């Protein structure tokens, strides 16, 4: 995974020098270990800042909507699907983009590492092959990367970018057995009251910081419904009613569009698995329409098409 870095920097430098793109959206090393930062580079000489490791979990498609320039962008499998969603939703044109695809071997969930070291300060992380070496004051551990992957990476079916103009490495083997959605099935088995209790408990620590919304490439409305004041759709407090309203609506806005990239969950400062809301919708869209978001730039998403002769009886 780490070996992609050189190729990414080489490609980035070349396309900036050849003026194929005006800027590159990529990752740079974070100021803290276990973290990376998004970076926009316009100058070929600065392409060396670009960085790649297993902590590049942000979804850079988030920075695309309504941009006018020619853009080079680094994209993992999930990111490339979100770019496809943007193209289908007319947020960006395919011709504007030069997509540097990254065949992804999964991102590491920094929280799993932090909990392994009991919250002690991690000062350095070295990746080599399938191992990660985690160092801090008075400790050093060699961990198997595959044990510390983000949950969404474990069940990921689309590791390779679905659209790309260049590729940073050899394609990786895709997972064969489909996501079992066991977590969603467990919730589906609950009664109405039990579900309500489960979700109320899930979001009880939510501070309404909206980090999940901001990290999500799907949330690009000029004014989000939670920020509207006239009419005020939802209160600004952390009253449980307002918080639940926010979470239900946030999830529904992602219906049929979500690629389960996990950016929302990773962004949450209080560790709420907000994916449990969106995953149910992903499962429904897959079951009902046999559709997974962002696999094609031609296919219309299921929720913006209809048939006058729809056989479902609720449309009568």
């Amino acid at each position, binding site marked *: 995974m780490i070996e992609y870095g050189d190729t990414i920097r080489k490609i980035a430098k070349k396309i900036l020098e050849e003026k194929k793109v005006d800027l590159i959206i990529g990752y740079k090393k974070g100021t803290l270990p276990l973290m990376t930062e998004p970076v926009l580079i316009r100058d070929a000489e600065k392409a060396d800042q670009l960085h790649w490791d297993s902590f590049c979990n942000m979804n850079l498609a988030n920075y695309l909507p309504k941009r006018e320039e020619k853009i080079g962008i680094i994209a993992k499998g999930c990111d490339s699907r979100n770019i496809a969603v943007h193209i289908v939703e007319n947020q960006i044109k395919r011709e504007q983009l030069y997509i540097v695809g990254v065949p992804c071997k999964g991102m590491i969930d920094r929280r799993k590492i932090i909990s392994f070291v009991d919250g002690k300060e991690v000062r350095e992380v070295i990746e080599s092959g399938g191992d990660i070496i985690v160092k801090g004051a008075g400790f050093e551990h060699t961990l198997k990367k595959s044990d510390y992957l983000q949950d969404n990476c474990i069940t990921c079916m689309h590791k390779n970018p679905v659209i790309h103009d260049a590729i940073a490495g050899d394609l990786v083997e895709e997972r064969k057995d489909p996501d079992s959605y066991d977590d969603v099935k467990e919730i589906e088995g609950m009664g109405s009251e039990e579900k309500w209790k489960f979700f109320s408990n899930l979001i009880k620590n939510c501070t309404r910081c909206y980090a999940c919304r901001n990290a999500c490439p799907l949330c690009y409305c000029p004014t989000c419904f939670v920020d509207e004041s006239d009419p005020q759709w939802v209160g600004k407090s952390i009253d449980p009613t307002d918080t639940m309203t926010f979470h239900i609506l946030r999830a529904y806005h992602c219906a049929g569009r979500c690629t389960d990239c996990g950016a929302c969950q990773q962004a949450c400062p209080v560790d709420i698995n907000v994916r449990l809301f969106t995953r149910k919708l992903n499962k429904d869209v897959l079951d009902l329409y046999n559709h997974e978001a962002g696999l094609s730039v031609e296919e219309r998403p299921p929720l913006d098409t209809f048939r006058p002769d729809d056989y479902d009886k609720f*449309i009568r």
Partner: protein
Amino acid sequence: VGLDPERLHFSWISSSEAGKFAEVATEVIEEVRKVGPIAKLVKGSAEVV
């Protein structure tokens, strides 16, 4: 997420179908009346700490 299924209704009504709208609305009201007052997503006064 545990919303009461009896309170959730979907329909497809064109702006020209006034009769159908009235019909569906009446039906929804009757259904909701049967389940009685709502308990979830009701905002009370703010908690005083």
